[in-house]
């Protein structure tokens, strides 16, 4: 990864569980803990979306969570990226034909913000290595955005 002029801070991530089955969520924690240890790159899980650069979203969006997820997305300050962990975010996964699913997260969030930056990390569940790679991808995209803003 080439660090450009805009690279000035480490990425902080906020984890949003939009009705996930926990499979991806435990792999996210695995990615943060010593075997994979993304914290060594300054990537940190934070407690509020207002401190975050990247939203880690797991699971399909169900009706109960839809409004909450939208509000969390709006509370995150820009420039921001969304990292969709797992197949559910892209296709709703095995729950695609359920009555309570609002739709895959990417379609849902495009309605809120058509220019949303979305990084897909497929897998059911995602592997910690794939999450690390996805964060790097989000990093690159955010660097470009920040470079344009300066």
């Amino acid at each position: 990864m080439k660090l450009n002029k805009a690279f000035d801070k480490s990425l902080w991530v906020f984890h949003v569980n939009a009705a996930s089955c926990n499979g991806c969520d435990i792999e996210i924690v695995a990615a943060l803990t010593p075997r994979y240890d993304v914290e060594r790159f300054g990537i940190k899980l934070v407690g509020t979306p207002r401190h975050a650069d990247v939203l880690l979203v797991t699971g399909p969006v169900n009706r109960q969570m839809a409004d909450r997820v939208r509000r969390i997305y709006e509370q995150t300050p820009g420039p921001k990226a969304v990292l969709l962990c797992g197949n559910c975010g892209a296709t709703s996964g095995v729950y695609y034909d359920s009555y309570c699913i609002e739709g895959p997260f990417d379609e849902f969030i495009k309605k809120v913000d058509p220019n949303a930056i979305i990084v897909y990390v497929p897998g059911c569940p995602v592997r910690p290595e794939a999450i690390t790679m996805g964060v790097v991808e989000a990093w690159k995209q955010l660097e470009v955005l920040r470079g344009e803003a300066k």
Partner: protein
Amino acid sequence: MAHAPPYPLMIGPIHPALKEPTMFKFTMEGERVLDVDIQPGFNHRGVEYLGMKRNPLQVLHLAERVCGICSGAHQYVFCRAVEHAANITPSVRGDYLRVLVAELERIHSHLLWAGVAGHELGFDSILHYTWKVREDVQDILEIICGNRVNYSYYIFGGVRRDVTPEQVEKARKIFAKYRKLEDTILDIFLTDPTISHRVQDVGVLTKENALKLSACGPLTRGAGVKKDVRFSWPYGSYGDMMDDFKVVTPESLGYKATGDIFSQVVVRLVELFEAIRMCEWVLDNLPSGPITSEPNLSALLMAKLRMAEGEGVARVEAPRGEDIHYVRLKKNKMELDSWKIRVPTYGNIMSWLTMFKDAQIADIPIIIASIDPCIGCMDRVTLVDSGTGRERDVDWAVLHDLSVKRSRGLMP
């Protein structure tokens, strides 16, 4: 202050102390919890409904996605329920291998819990230490099943893959490593003053309440109730293991079963190392033979499952407690006719009501984490009036009324 106590305090559905969306409405007086109301339903995905649109082989993969942490347990119990309904007897070697993976899952789940509990206490070194240790069991699971989290190991009649001698050798090395760590891990959790001060006499669930509220799993065993499906209703190879293993309670390690969070820590840690010994026992006593009694999947699906008629119920001791699946199959129908899941957390959340009484605000995260909640498993259905969009509660009187009406309707 403008308002007099008690004060409401809302936690959730998205909150740093919660790993999954659920909501708590606390009534507080100062720092003290007076009452709590739990509002689940944020993680509802309609799994049971989806099961009724798919055939049993497809539902196998849906069953393990009820919950990512106890995915093996859900697949295991679903297999057993369908086997019960369709009269399939699993092969002996398959039964033993099923128990091997179920116990490996218990190791990973209890280590996960220990880490999360440490994190909720503000002791992040423990989170990182236990999750580092946990990666080794994830390695065994990956070697044996091919995936770290959703194993897809179980199938009607047995298991999908056999273990090879090389895999067994690798697994044994890791078990030996764990047994070396046993003293260290017990020492960290049971003698460290930081942990004992925070968990002793906190979140007490008495034996009476545990029985009254039908709690299950390590939570009740911490309160001194010897309730464990593996021993009271043996399945798989557990029947053959009864002589070597006993139900784990805090008394196994010489502690009193007080029902506080410390007792649960003791139970989960002892069970963790018991599970390692169980895995070794299974590898030592693994019988030869086929891994599944139904090697031909299309014959199984088209002949046996499609023609089966009847109901099946099965119970399995998941890492969090008793997991029950009910399945009904109809003749000439590919899809499940009915599917009901009763997960351990569903039995356990009511215990929160008594555990939170008189607790401090600072103890809320550890009490929430202590029962090892799995909301992803639990959120089955909320009754919503489609006309008004209003949710309604169904209490005992309403249910009784409905039942009486239904009986009257059946009578001529």
